[in-house]
């Protein structure tokens, strides 16, 4: 119960436009005439730049215009009367367009009447069809309006030239030179442009008369916009804007005086230009063509434009992001004793942050005690608020007892933070919604925030000095929302993939393995200790071993924390993927079986309880028993496991890295063997007998072979080491259970570090032809190119160490680059999708009501509520039902299933119906069982549906952006065929959302028809016809014979045979107009019949396409799933689809724009989904397909593929403010003003900027009251 300010006014829309000079004068409080600010006493000079009527900066002074003090006075504009009209720099482009498109005499549009009528009709038609008129239509009209003579008054038109920054020139006819159009002339011409004509250009005359773009009056912003600061030395320092205004006024006054005195035109002109310069830099100090105005110190002034734009500008820094009170920040440290949804808050912070509590009869005593304790003694209070609004600061109260006595219901006490209060905890970068979660406060000693280790993954936190932020929600509403929506337990399931993102990590997993492995047997004393630590209060199970003393197995203890009716099975992380799984009989105990809450076989490790593991025990518990139960489970086992590993002790020591001499010998032998292989390769390379890989040079092929060989060497060495170590080795234990590290790490530590690489190649840089001076030039030996034979345990020699540092440096650089790139991608995604939400009719729409998806994710299921992407896990459901109704009734007929399913067909998705049918037929359930299954499916499906208002756009953007940081940069991976390079990873993902015109590696996968896909020969035949061949590709030589002025081409027989081109086809292709083709011997002569540029002709001839599809630079025939497939470098789908021998229905390309053009926008959408999913899957990242579908849908919304970014979706947003806040701030606002746009304030950014609640999620809900009904009630 807390005071909550009621918003009195809501901004419904914002209109943009220009001020007229009259309006500026009317709104002005002062005509500023003096270029000075303060006099000697420090009092503002009247009609100076700091005039009291502009508002006051002194806290106690009253404003001379409105009479308010500094806090309440909004500030008032003044104005400067300019002596001559001045062109406003920001509108120069628009002025120029208008001057060109209108008559210089009468101001009418330079298009004939009938054309204008036609255009009007077209605009009307388009408006009716599209609801709005796209910009490009107006742009075209502006471009088209250009004639020699005005169709209305007949005046001849001259060319208008714009000279940066602010000069307009008019070219006289017949080359009489150009003369300047003075600002007043420009203004006069603009005055003549009529309202109707302006509308044809898309400009609004009501909001912005064009002549207002030439300034007569300059507004002077209030002092709050440009406060002066007093330095410690007492010297006043003025704002950059004030400095600029001083310049303007000074020149303006001088100009005025000179004009009055009738000074020569030259002086007047010079002064006018100077004034123009100052006004220009006042608006934009970065305009091209003028030197920026500088401060005395040489620093460029930060004027109006610079104040708005960029990351540090007003829009992004102050309007879209706001500073808050009631927050704290400090270093974090781990505390396994906490609950996962708790946060440890240092006492110092808890006694500075407050929560307002309204005094009631029930809490008055408690609050009085808080007040008595005051600010310094915890738990106390900092402020008391009286009902009359007066705030008492307890710090300054001498007798707090008196205040405490005076408190009565209705007062508000701002008390210290206490245990159990709700707080919002956050770590930057906030890449997904789990980066901000609500925790319960636990006040603790010392100076750091404490958090449970299981919540490290969602925050991506570690304890190497990370800091985090804490916020205390102040209103009852905010606290309720935090409690209901943001609690840690409700965030365990990530909306990214519909699985738990919170779970056990590191030592918890090690401990779980140690506890649940077969050999663990514990005496009663230990069992009791463990169970008490996990606050277990049930009875002990029967011990597994009774004699000589009762011993309990770890599995038994773990089972006590599982729900009693829980059944489940999976393969643990330690599973060796044996060729034949022995299931329950697994020799590694990797087959986990839980029946009725008892862990029968298998060990618990990462797969079962780890973070980011779908379909784990934790996931199943949350899905079947709810988040609360899941949290309890996680908390309890963490306590248990923590104590268990403390009791056992666990360490990884140096001597565990040592291999037996036998193993060492074996490793040395393998390394030697592979080195020998390399030696052989070297010999073959030098001899030239090395097999060249297609599309690679001999040297490249050699490098690839060597790299493969050495990678194998390292792997084998690692495997040997791995084989030697058993699970008794702590390191291996950690990697096998998934607690930490990989077997690669073990291999590098114990066997051999392996090849160091820079840019995906062996180390080639350094000295000329060698990496270091210790080697011979061109030494291709592994050692000389950065292969590290040593292991980390044995230690690297100096050369190896140096190479290792080179590789290591690249890793660091990569990380730095990657975070930047993925950060920008995320920003663009968020900006493009933030305003999407689920409407009450289940559609996904943007802020202006345009439909993006008719049903979210095509099935309406929320990934966060789904079961790893599926609406209902039917197989599991059927299994559960089977157990429930076991042995009751005989199996129902299939017809019954069909009938039952037919009834619910309309309520479920076709996929679910299909799956139900399959599973039900398989399970042979009784009628009752079938009824129950269908009923439960329906129930689960409805529960999994998205709720109206859900911010699906933001969730999708986060779900794609967040894993971006984990992606590798620069993976030129071998796709299927090892010879082919494909851009993958982050660069490819960026390329996809960028909707690049040409992908960096365009590739086609061409499938063949029945005749050609069987054999390689047939496939090669087709491939030969696809490969692009030009004259240059088959010519041995091509040159101009200077004597006879003929072009001579000597075809290479071998090449022609290679590409299967006959002489006849070549000749046919070389038949050109105005040329004659002759043969002499093996030479082809082309003789010109007409005078022509022979050099150009030669270039043209060399580019003539003889065979194949242009752009296809390489073809590869590969076997894939039992058939031959052609893959190409370069993409050109249309001709390929018409080629004989291919199967056009399967042939695809990775070039999105090309697909959109040849197969349509829907195909492009499907390709976008396919490509994006492909990239993410290749990187092993789990992202729900619904997020990707949403991105693809919005990218293809307009019928063409649009970019996620300023040239696409973000640039076409309906809100001016949202566009301005994203990128290109100033031009957006200017365009909006000229067009007289209104911002309907229906999106997210806009409302954040004006400080209102956003229309998404809980902010969407409004209270509507039927006032008419109320009236009737009263009347009736």
């Amino acid at each position, binding site marked *: 119960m807390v005071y909550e300010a009621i918003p009195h006014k809501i901004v419904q829309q914002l209109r943009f436009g220009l001020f007229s000079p009259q309006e500026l004068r009317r709104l002005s409080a002062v005509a500023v005439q003096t270029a000075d600010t303060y006099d000697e006493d420090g009092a503002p000079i009247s009609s100076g730049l700091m005039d009291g009527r502009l508002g006051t900066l002194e806290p106690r002074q009253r404003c001379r215009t409105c009479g308010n003090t500094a806090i309440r006075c909004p500030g008032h504009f003044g104005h400067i009367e300019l002596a001559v009209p001045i062109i406003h720099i920001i509108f120069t482009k628009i002025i120029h367009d208008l001057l060109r498109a209108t008559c210089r005499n009468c101001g009418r549009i330079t298009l004939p009447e009938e054309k204008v009528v036609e255009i009007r009709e077209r605009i009307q038609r388009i408006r009716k*069809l*599209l*609801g*709005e008129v796209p910009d490009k239509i107006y742009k075209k009209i502006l471009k088209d309006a250009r004639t020699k003579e005005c169709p209305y008054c007949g005046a001849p038109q001259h060319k208008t030239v714009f000279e940066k920054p602010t000069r307009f020139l008019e070219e006289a006819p017949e080359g009489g030179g150009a003369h300047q159009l003075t600002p007043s002339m420009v203004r006069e011409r603009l005055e003549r442009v009529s309202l109707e004509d302006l509308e044809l250009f898309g400009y609004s005359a009501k909001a912005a008369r064009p002549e207002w773009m030439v300034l007569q009056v300059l507004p002077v912003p209030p002092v709050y916009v440009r406060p002066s600061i007093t330095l410690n030395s007492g010297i006043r320092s003025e704002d950059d804007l004030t400095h600029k205004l001083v310049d303007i006024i000074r020149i303006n006054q001088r100009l005025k005086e000179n004009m009055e005195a009738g000074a020569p035109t030259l002086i007047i002109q010079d002064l006018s230009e100077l004034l123009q310069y100052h006004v220009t830099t006042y608006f934009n100090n970065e305009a091209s063509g003028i030197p920026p105005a500088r401060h005395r110190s040489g620093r460029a002034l930060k004027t109006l434009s610079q104040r708005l734009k960029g990351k540090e500008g007003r829009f992004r820094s102050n309007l879209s992001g706001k500073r808050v009170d009631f927050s704290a920040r400090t270093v974090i440290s781990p505390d396994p004793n906490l609950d996962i949804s708790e946060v440890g808050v240092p006492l110092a912070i808890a006694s500075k942050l407050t929560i307002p509590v309204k005094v009631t009869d029930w809490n008055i005593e408690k609050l009085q005690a808080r007040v008595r304790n005051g600010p310094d003694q915890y738990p106390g209070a900092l402020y008391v608020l009286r009902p009359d609004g007066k705030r008492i600061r307890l710090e300054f109260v001498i007798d707090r007892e008196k205040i405490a006595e005076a408190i009565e219901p209705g007062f508000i006490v701002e008390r210290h933070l206490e245990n159990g209060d709700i707080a919002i905890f956050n770590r930057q970068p906030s890449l997904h919604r789990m980066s901000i979660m609500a925790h319960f406060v636990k006040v603790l000693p010392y100076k750091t925030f404490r958090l449970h280790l299981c919540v490290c993954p969602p925050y991506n936190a570690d304890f190497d000095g990370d800091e985090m932020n804490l916020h205390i929600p102040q209103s009852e509403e905010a606290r309720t929302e935090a409690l209901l929506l943001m609690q840690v337990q409700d965030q365990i399931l990530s909306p990214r993939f519909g699985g738990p993102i919170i779970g056990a990590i590191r030592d918890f997993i090690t401990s779980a393995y140690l506890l649940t492995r077969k050999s663990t047997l514990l005496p009663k004393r230990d069992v009791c200790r463990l169970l008490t630590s996990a606050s277990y209060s049930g009875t002990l199970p029967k011990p597994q071993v009774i004699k000589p003393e009762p011993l309990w197995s770890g599995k038994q203890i773990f089972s006590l924390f599982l729900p009693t009716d829980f059944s489940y099975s999976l393969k643990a992380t330690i599973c060796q993927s044996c060729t034949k799984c022995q299931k329950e009989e697994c020799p590694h105990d990797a087959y986990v079986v839980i029946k009725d809450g008892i862990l029968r076989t298998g060990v618990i490790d990462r797969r079962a309880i780890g973070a980011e593991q779908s379909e784990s025990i934790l996931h199943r518990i949350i899905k079947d028993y709810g988040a609360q139960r899941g949290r309890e489970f996680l908390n309890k086992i963490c306590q248990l496991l923590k104590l268990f590993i403390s009791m056992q002790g666990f360490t990884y020591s140096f001597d565990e890295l040592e291999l037996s001499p036998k193993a060492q010998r074996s490793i040395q032998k393998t390394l030697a063997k592979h080195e020998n292989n390399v030696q052989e390769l070297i010999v073959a390379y030098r001899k030239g007998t090395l097999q060249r890989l297609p599309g690679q040079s001999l040297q490249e092929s050699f490098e690839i072979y060597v790299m493969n060989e050495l990678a194998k060497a390292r792997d084998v060495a690692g495997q040997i080491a791995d084989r030697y170590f058993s699970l008794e080795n702590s390191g291996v234990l950690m990697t096998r259970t998934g607690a930490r590290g990989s077997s690669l790490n073990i291999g590098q530590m114990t066997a051999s570090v392996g090849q160091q690489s820079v840019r995906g190649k062996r180390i080639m840089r350094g000295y000329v032809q060698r990496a270091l001076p210790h080697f011979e030039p061109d030494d291709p030996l592994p050692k000389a190119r950065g292969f590290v034979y040593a292991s980390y345990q044995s230690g690297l020699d100096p050369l190896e160490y140096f190479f290792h540092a080179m590789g290591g440096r690249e890793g660091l650089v990569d990380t730095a680059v990657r975070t930047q790139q993925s950060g920008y991608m995320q920003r663009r995604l968020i900006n493009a999708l933030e305003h999407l939400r689920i409407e009450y*009719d289940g*559609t996904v*729409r943007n802020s*202006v*009501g*345009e*439909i*993006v*998806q*008719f*049903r979210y*994710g*095509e*099935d309406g*299921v929320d990934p966060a509520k789904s079961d790893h*992407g599926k*609406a209902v896990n039917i197989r599991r459901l059927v299994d559960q039902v089977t157990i429930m109704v076991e042995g009751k009734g005989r199996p129902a007929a299939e017809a019954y299933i069909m009938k039952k399913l037919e009834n619910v067909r309309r309520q479920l*998705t*076709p*996929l*679910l*119906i*299909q799956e139900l049918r399959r599973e039900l037929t398989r399970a042979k359930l009784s009628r009752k069982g079938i009824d129950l299954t269908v009923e439960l499916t329906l129930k689960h499906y409805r529960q999994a549906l998205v709720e109206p208002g859900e911010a699906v756009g933001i969730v999708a953007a986060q779900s794609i952006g967040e894993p971006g940081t984990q992606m590798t940069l620069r993976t030129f991976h071998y796709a299927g065929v090892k010879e082919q390079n494909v851009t993958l990873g982050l660069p490819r993902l960026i390329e996809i959302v960028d909707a690049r015109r040409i992908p960096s590696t365009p590739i086609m996968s061409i499938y063949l028809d029945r005749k050609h896909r069987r054999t390689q020969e047939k496939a090669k035949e087709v491939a030969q016809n696809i490969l692009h061949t030009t004259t240059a590709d088959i010519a041995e030589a091509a040159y101009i014979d200077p004597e006879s002025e003929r072009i001579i081409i000597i075809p290479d027989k071998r090449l022609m045979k290679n590409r299967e081109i006959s002489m006849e086809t070549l000749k046919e292709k070389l038949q050109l107009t105005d040329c004659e083709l002759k043969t002499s011997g093996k030479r082809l002569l082309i003789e010109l019949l007409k005078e022509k540029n022979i050099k150009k002709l030669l270039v043209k001839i060399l580019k003539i396409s003889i065979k194949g599809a242009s752009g296809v630079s390489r073809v590869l025939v590969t076997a894939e799933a039992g058939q031959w497939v052609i893959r190409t470098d370069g993409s050109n789908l*249309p001709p390929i*689809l*018409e080629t*004989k021998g291919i199967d*056009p*229905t*399967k042939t*695809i390309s990775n070039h999105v724009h090309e*697909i959109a*053009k*040849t*197969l*349509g*926008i*829907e*195909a492009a959408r*499907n*390709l976008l989904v*396919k490509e994006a999913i492909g990239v993410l899957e290749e990187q092993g990242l789990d992202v729900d*397909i*619904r997020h990707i*579908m949403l991105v693809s*849908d919005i990218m*293809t*919304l*307009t*019928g*063409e593929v649009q970019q996620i970014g300023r040239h696409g979706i973000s640039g076409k947003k309906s809100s001016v403010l949202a566009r301005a806040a994203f990128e290109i701030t100033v031009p957006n606002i200017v365009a909006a003003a000229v067009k007289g746009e209104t911002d309907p304030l229906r999106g997210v950014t806009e409302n954040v900027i004006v400080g209102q609640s956003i229309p998404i999620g809980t902010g969407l809900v409004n209270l509507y009251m039927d006032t008419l009904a109320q009236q009737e009630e009263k009347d009736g």
Partner: protein
Amino acid sequence: MSKEEQTSIVEKKVQILIKLRGYKRQKRVELKNAIGFYVKTSEGKTLIFCVPTEGTVGVAYINQLLKIIEEEELKKTMVVIGGRYTQAAKKKAKANKIELIPQIFPAFNLFDHKLVPKHEILATEEREALLEKYRAKPYQFPRIKLSDPAIVAIGAKAGDIVKVIRNSPTAGECFAYRYVVPD
């Protein structure tokens, strides 16, 4: 590519077009430099003017066609080609309401391609019901261009709404709609 191959591809395109748009084929005539297909469409007798050259199609062809239109008083004509249109030809065709089928129009059933879902034009009643259901103006729907290959294939007009029957990985089968807009 040989001449016969070229002709067969272009003729294939015509056949695909006739099939996808559900026209009734009537007769095939050999014309100068071209082949004519007479079909019956909803708008009456229509001539599909088929130019199988690999080169450019200029105003000459359009003029030839215009003459036929005048002689036979055809309501609707279409041109299918193997090469490219010249700018002038495009302009003239547009002025005379001749539908030009672009060169990239595929010579196989577009909707058989694994990336392309089926598109259907919505009938007026369905359209009204849809707009009522979503309480939206047609321009608030996702859009598709008039020049989109799928739209050319089914012959939808600007202002139509097409139903897209998508094969969804999440739902099995699902429907989306797109509003046909001019380029």
